[in-house]
């Protein structure tokens, strides 16, 4: 759980970071919450909400960009037959340290059963390099890229069943961007790099989330980690299962043998 992050932000000279714990959002009073073991019930097809975990302070990732990032995830999982809808929940609807009570309110408002909370942890280191020093003394900051930056981003999707408050599965995504810029453009360039860092981390997370979803489906089938209930609008299949195929195969073999013996 230590990787689950909400968000907070600090500024240092040359460095910039946004990080936090999703535990701070969902369990604000207890750092190690006691979970009552319950078997979650998933009613298929699922309505899924997706949101960034809220932070303690205003973060610099604009809501438009957050919405764009969330829609990338939504598009990647939209056509699953067991998902009837994916709703993007704006961060404004989630209160910092709001806990499961706040999550349940948002889930009711958007009519979703399961919520995927995207946490993030981004650190940027900036430094002046030798060229920038050379440039300051002779030509000026515009001509030669004189400052370099390094942006590391971790995005972590944690999928919760809202009713039972159970963590179903999680998947991380990471990115690292290194670049350099003229000193006077460093602020703009590094801001772009930070936004690009989120994009790349989300793109890295999507296949991991897909893998974890497949693993979760296997656990549902084999270990019965959740109870599946079908609600109106479910998808069905007319399928002959392995036992029936075994029966038919055996009967076909017997019929063939009997015919051969009969001539």
């Amino acid at each position, binding site marked *: 759980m230590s990787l689950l992050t909400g968000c907070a932000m600090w500024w240092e000279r040359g460095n910039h970071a946004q990080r936090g714990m999703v535990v701070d959002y969902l369990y604000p009073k207890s750092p190690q919450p006691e979970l009552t073991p319950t078997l979650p019930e998933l009613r298929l097809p699922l309505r899924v909400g997706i949101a960034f975990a809220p932070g303690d302070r205003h973060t610099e990732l604009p809501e438009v960009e957050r919405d764009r990032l969330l829609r990338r995830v939504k598009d990647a999982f939209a056509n699953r037959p067991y998902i009837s809808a994916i709703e993007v929940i704006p961060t404004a609807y989630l209160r910092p340290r709001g806990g499961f009570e706040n999550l349940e309110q948002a889930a009711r408002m958007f009519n979703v059963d399961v919520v995927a909370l995207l946490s993030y942890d981004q650190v940027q280191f900036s430094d002046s390099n030798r060229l920038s020093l050379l440039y300051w003394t002779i030509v000026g900051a515009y001509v030669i890229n004189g400052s370099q930056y390094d942006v590391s981003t971790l995005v972590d999707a944690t999928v919760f069943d809202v009713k039972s408050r159970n963590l179903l599965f999680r998947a991380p995504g990471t990115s690292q961007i290194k670049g350099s810029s003229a000193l006077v453009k460093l602020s703009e360039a590094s801001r772009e790099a930070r936004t690009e860092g989120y994009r790349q981390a989300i793109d890295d997370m999507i296949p991991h989330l897909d893998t974890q979803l497949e693993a979760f489906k296997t656990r549902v089938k084999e270990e019965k980690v959740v109870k599946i209930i079908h609600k109106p609008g479910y*998808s069905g299949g007319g*399928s002959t299962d392995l036992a029936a195929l075994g*029966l038919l195969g055996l*009967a076909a073999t017997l019929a063939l043998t*009997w015919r051969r013996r009969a001539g």
Partner: protein
Amino acid sequence: MPAKQLLPALLVSLFALANLMPGASMQYDRDAIAGGEVWRLWTGQLCHWSILHLLGNLAAVAALTVIAGKPLLRWLALLPVAAPLLSLTLLGLLPELQRYRGLSGFVAMLVVGVAMEGGMIGRLTALGWVAKLGFDAYSGTPSPLLPAGISTTWQAHLAGLLLGLAAAAGFLHLDRRTSVRP
């Protein structure tokens, strides 16, 4: 073209169409059918959720054909007629079922054919298959051949079984008339 040749040709064409076109436009979809996409009444019973699902159902049809032999062909020829009847049964009896794909309603119908045409082995097979249907209805066990989130619609199997019994009554009547005719 006589009906004996027309119906199998129609079945093969429909089957190819249903499985080669995108499943979303071929599947049984309650809202789309209500919106006028009536071809889904046929193709929904023939298209599949996955290759594994398709192979499982085709294997069942192949096994039934081996058990009953040539007499099962007239049952296979009935399938284009039975498809919309099966879909209409689902529309009427399962309002919660939004989407459906699969051939196993037909398989259930062919099981009756096997009981009628397949001798003792056929009758025993049908008996075992009906017991399995009862178990599925009671336990709700999902088929491993279906993708996650898709439930086995045992009601389609029951509908196929009932349609098969109706077809059996029809064939018995026809057979008697043919044998009585001088």
